[in-house]
């Protein structure tokens, strides 16, 4: 697809729009429908579109499998780490009330962190899966 000018131009314009929508879904998730899982998938779609048009090699220059693995692990750690922090504050696992002085604010911070962890992991994992399948040599 490297020579298809229309696709290349359109993809370049679509990428930021898709990514922006992903971030909207991510950070609006505690007020309306949305959240880390959906946002992660949408964000990975932006990268998958980019990969389809510009090729696997170009995409891996942006996000190498090593970086993706670390991102996937970091997301899980962020999720579980939030739970551990609430325990350190003397509450139960994932008891967000204790993350701020005011329980409502605490719930906001907590759900934000959790969903961020989910979003990072999901988008990284979707890309790992896609790259793994796309990068496999035909036998």
């Amino acid at each position, binding site marked *: 697809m490297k020579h298809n000018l229309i696709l290349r131009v359109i993809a370049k314009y679509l990428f930021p729009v898709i990514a922006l929508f992903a971030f909207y879904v991510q950070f609006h998730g505690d007020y*309306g*429908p949305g959240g880390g*899982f959906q946002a992660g998938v949408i964000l990975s779609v932006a990268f998958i579109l980019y990969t389809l048009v510009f090729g696997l090699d170009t995409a891996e220059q942006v996000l190498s499998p090593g970086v993706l693995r670390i991102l996937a692990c970091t997301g899980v750690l962020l999720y579980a780490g939030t739970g551990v922090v609430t325990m350190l504050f003397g509450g139960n696992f994932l008891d967000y009330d204790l993350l701020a002085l005011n329980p409502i604010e605490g719930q906001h911070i907590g759900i934000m962190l959790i969903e961020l962890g989910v979003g990072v992991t999901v988008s990284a994992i979707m890309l790992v*899966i896609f790259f*793994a*399948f796309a990068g*496999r040599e035909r*036998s």
Partner: protein
Amino acid sequence: MIDIIVGHYNYWVVIFLMMAGFYTVIDRGNLIKKIAGLSIFQTSVFLLYISIGYVSDGTTPIIAEGFTRYSNPLPHVLILTAIVVGVSTTALGLALIVRINEAYGTIEEDEIHEQDKSL
């Protein structure tokens, strides 16, 4: 009678999808078709849960002015988790199929059995 058929149409869809998926898993020898059947089978269960969560005349469970009846959000949350499980299962199944194809050169179950027997 009509009431049972029309009034529960979502459950009929669930049963149809469930049986279609389950049959595909059991009957088809092609591994990809098996995974496709498995996905349909799982999807029917998602639909079952969503049906359970429906409250008549209820809206999306988001607090807003002017609405007092909401659908039960809990089944939605449960199914979001089950969808993740389903995606992982499908991805893992397909990855195994890629490896099987590399090792055997086929993804037809009977041909794989044939090769294993000849060893």
